[in-house]
């Protein structure tokens, strides 16, 4: 998967503790990352838009709004961003809650540089992956969007594994007409073979399900 967005990924650091926040910023910037620190979840929330790639280093224990709450809020709003929860003491309850909400990583303070680097790296990779999927789905959706009623009918039949002959019989048209519908459909979806067509449609279904899952997660 390639980077979908042109802008470089940013590490958003949200921690109310100034020393912790600034020390993270110092370490991550000398490691060559773009770092943007926030002292409150609200500050980050106001700033962040879903197009911004990167990952979130989030302190769990914060006044007013905890890291978990912020993460849930982001999910509810469909802003999916990999999160590295930073905690002083990862007790089971918080860990389970964080895992359920889809957080990828946990970091227990104090942590060493390599661990941090590993976590950050995998989080950024996940973000890139997510963004790639999103982009693919978006283009698929755009292509499927342009199909007319006749094309969709044809597609459904192809997916069902019907032969040209059977389709012609069901639609009360000639086999030649079926051939023409097929080539028109494949042209619109920019595929060159039936195998490619099937792969595209099933990918779309999986991505749609993922989107649906994401939506239902946020409703939880």
């Amino acid at each position, binding site marked *: 998967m390639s980077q979908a967005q042109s802008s470089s990924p940013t590490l958003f650091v949200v921690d109310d503790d100034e*020393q*912790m926040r600034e*020390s993270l910023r*110092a*370490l991550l910037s000398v490691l060559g990352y773009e770092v943007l620190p926030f002292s409150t979840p609200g500050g980050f929330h106001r700033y962040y838009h879903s197009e911004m790639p990167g990952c979130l280093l989030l302190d769990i224990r914060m*006044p*007013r709004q905890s890291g978990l709450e912020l993460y849930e809020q982001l999910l509810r709003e469909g802003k999916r961003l990999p999160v590295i929860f*930073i905690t*002083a003491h990862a007790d089971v309850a918080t860990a389970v809650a964080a895992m359920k909400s889809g957080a990828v990583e946990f970091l227990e303070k*104090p942590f060493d540089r390599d661990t941090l680097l590993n976590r950050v790296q995998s989080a950024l990779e996940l973000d890139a992956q997510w963004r790639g999927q999103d982009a693919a789905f978006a283009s698929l959706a755009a292509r499927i969007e342009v199909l007319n009623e006749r094309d969709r009918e044809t597609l459904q039949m192809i997916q069902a594994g019907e032969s040209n002959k059977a389709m012609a019989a069901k639609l009360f048209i000639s086999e030649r007409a079926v051939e023409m519908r097929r080539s028109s459909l494949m042209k619109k979806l920019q595929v060159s073979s039936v195998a490619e067509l099937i792969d595209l449609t099933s990918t779309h279904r999986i991505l749609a399900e993922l989107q649906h899952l994401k939506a239902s997660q946020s409703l939880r």
Partner: protein
Amino acid sequence: MVPTNPQPTLEERPSPSADALIRRLGRRYLLVLAVVAGLMLVDQAIIQPLLVRMDSYAPVINLAGRQRMLSQKLAKAALAAEGAPDAERRDASRQELKGALAEWIAANDALRQGSEQLNVPRIVSADLAREWAELDHDLQPIAAAAQEIIDGDAVGAQSAATILAHESAFLERMERIVDLFELEAAQEVSRLRVYSLTIAIAVASLLIILGWLVVRPATRAIRRQVDDLELRVAQRTAELAEMVASLQHEVAERKLAESHGRQLAAQLAHADRVASMGHLAIGLAHELNQPLGAIANYASAGDVILSQAGPARDDRRLQQYLQQINEAALRAGQIVRRIRKFVSRTDADASDAVDVDLGALVREVLELCQFEIRRAAVVDVLKLDSRPALVEVDPIQIQQVLVNLIQNALQSLQSCPADSRRLVIELEVDDDWAEVSVTDNGPGFDVADLDAPFAAFHTTKVEGLGVGLSICRTIVDAHGGQIRIHPAATGAQLSFKLPLAKSPQLLPLNEPSPVFQSDAVCR
């Protein structure tokens, strides 16, 4: 030891018998007075008339003396009438004789019978009666002869001779009668003396009796009373001395007990703080991890910079990170000190009362408990009064109270569903007091007895000593404040209030918590 009156009878015994004695003595005194008064009446009734009679003896004796003189006059007039040279002189003498005779007879009668007119009493005695009878032998002839001369029947000098013949005898008798009168008077005087003496003796003996029967017992009674009184005073003094000694002993014991009590309370408070510390330990570990994590990060960052060789190396930044490491290490040290301070002190007498802002104290405690609150899945709300709440307290002790209240609330909230656990901490300030209340929506207290939870070792929990609220009350009381449970339909509300400090200077807490804001809603 409680001093008791060892002889309660001593105090009460004299009153009835003394009353009786006084009544008895009073009766005796009145009796003797009555007798004396009676004697005085007797004196008036007997002696006085006798004295009056004594006065009348003198005229009697006078009259009797005059009788002698009259009898001589009688004789002289009779002789003159006998020897008169002419009739004229004879008549004159006869007239003289006639007057003298009448006077003489009247005086004689008066002496014998007594006379109001001549103011002479009748004086009688056996001797006098005999003398009077003897006197008649001379008196009658003299009177008859004198009458003969007056009448002119006299024969020659016969009558005058008769008068002369009887006169000397008469005078003699009269002399004796006068003596008898005098004797009678003297006897009267001696009788009077006897009477007076008798009465005087009676009065004197009555006085002696009075002394014997009244004064002596009264004196004795008074002396006994005085002795009793002195004895009682001595006893009382001894009792009082004993009481003072026992009181001093008691005071000393009480002081000792108090100091023991204080020590125990301090030890208990310390044990409570250590127990609280157990709960707080996780939160404090987190707190400590902040600077430790920061130190690790800065150190790693420094390491990365050092690994960059040559002119690209940013030494200024490196220096900056080292400085940050230093600050974080200092902060970690402060946290450790705070923990040590919260747990260590056991001496209740060393009260470190300073002027602090109760709001800052509340925020600090809330921070101390933050992790626990989070772990208990409790929504906590902090409402601070906009006015400053400056109180003069021992910050550690007041923090302990707050920690206790918050932990109680958190424990009680465990029985609630996780999504409805709510904890409100509120600080209100008025003119004289600052009041902190901790409210939860847990099962609450038994409204019937809102005082019971403050008793030591009262607990409804499975774990714990049940000393938390008791210690809270001890601490709040020691600060001149009040702690109480508010009756509530649901949940529990505990509050304590402290008097606002009078002096205006504010010593800042050693760890301000800038993260928390007034009226902030925290989670």
